[in-house]
């Protein structure tokens, strides 16, 4: 009986994920309405529940893909994986206004450069405080603080140790998760309620999953504007990390 059920689940992974995510969202919206009177957005609660499940999935299986490493929930990884995520992010542009994107375009580009450099400098500073002094490790950890893709790309290019690369990935993951969870709570303090600020936000934070999740829980209408800039961030980071930023760090710390 249980075996048959488990077989049905593992044979239809994507369908299971639709049911599981739908149920989790229903519960989240009930919690949002009943216990917070709608002050905390249902999708913010759903994202937090998702992250908690991902944590338990990770510690029970030792894998890297959260809940989706549990075999009956493998479809969660398919549904939340890169392919469908990017497809749905592009689809959000259907509701975006080109005029708004054009208006905030220059500002979005500026925020991209400032965002990469800012996160990098913060990462280098913290790594220094923790006792790293060589330019390769400092650059790799700084790059990982930009996003968890820039870190390993940079680290591999300049020959960082695997321990340092792991730290850089973890720093990027922390940034991404905190952006997902925190955005709806800080939104009103930083004026994040219009397309222009959303584009600046995407450029500054840069983690596509973090920005996409965070804005979805803040105001879904802002998602396309934040995503359109955020998706350039990792590319820019991979471009600057092993080159300009590494040379600057080397010049400063030898």
């Amino acid at each position, binding site marked *: 009986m249980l075996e048959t059920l488990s077989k049905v689940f593992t044979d239809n992974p994507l369908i299971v994920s639709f049911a599981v995510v739908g149920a989790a969202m229903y519960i989240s919206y009930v919690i949002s309405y009943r216990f917070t009177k709608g002050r905390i957005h249902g999708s913010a609660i759903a994202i937090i529940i998702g992250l908690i499940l991902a944590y338990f999935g990770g510690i029970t299986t030792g894998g890297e893909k959260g809940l989706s490493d549990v075999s009956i929930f493998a479809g969660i990884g398919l549904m939340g994986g890169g392919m469908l995520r990017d497809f749905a992010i592009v689809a959000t542009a259907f509701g975006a206004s080109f005029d708004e994107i054009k208006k905030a375009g220059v500002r979005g580009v500026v*925020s991209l450069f400032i965002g990469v450099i800012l996160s990098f400098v913060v990462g280098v500073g913290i790594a220094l405080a923790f006792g790293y002094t060589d330019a390769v490790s400092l650059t790799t950890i700084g790059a990982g603080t930009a996003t968890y893709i820039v870190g390993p790309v940079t680290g591999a290019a300049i020959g960082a140790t695997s321990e340092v690369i792991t730290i850089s990935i973890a720093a990027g993951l922390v940034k991404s998760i905190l952006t997902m969870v925190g955005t709806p709570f800080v939104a009103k303090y930083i004026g994040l309620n219009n397309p222009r600020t959303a584009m600046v936000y995407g450029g500054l934070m840069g983690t596509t999953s973090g920005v996409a999740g965070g804005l979805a829980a803040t105001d879904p209408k802002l998602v396309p504007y934040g995503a359109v800039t955020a*998706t350039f961030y990792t590319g820019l980071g991979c471009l600057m990390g092993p080159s300009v930023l590494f040379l600057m760090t080397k010049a400063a710390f030898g």
Partner: protein
Amino acid sequence: MVIFGVALLAICMLSGVFLGELLGLSLGIEANVGGVGIAMLLLVLIVDHLKKRGKLSQAAQDGLGFWSAMYIPIVIAMSASQNVAGALDGGPLAIVAGVAAVAISWIVVPILSASKRKEVFDGALDENHLTGGEEANVRNIK
């Protein structure tokens, strides 16, 4: 037909990601440079163009709308497949660096989004106002 909208979306995404890969290659880096962003811009332009000419049927728009609406559930599935345990395993350095980067970026958001660059940009569109440092609210009044 619904599939026309979905196909349009798919073609935009593939073209954008392809251009992003080419851009990455031409810059000599192992990453896609803004592929999804390029795809979004393509979609916005094409939808705008088709809608103005009345060439985008309601069914096709529904196809696009469905995937746009599936976005939040997909993000939640994404959150459930994050390497949360890995992030915490990275130790205090990783956690402090990640938290500090987010906190400082949050502080910079209002500074950047309300800076005077806006006027320079608006001015660039309208030559007459290139040096006019009007209030940031001008655009909102319009």
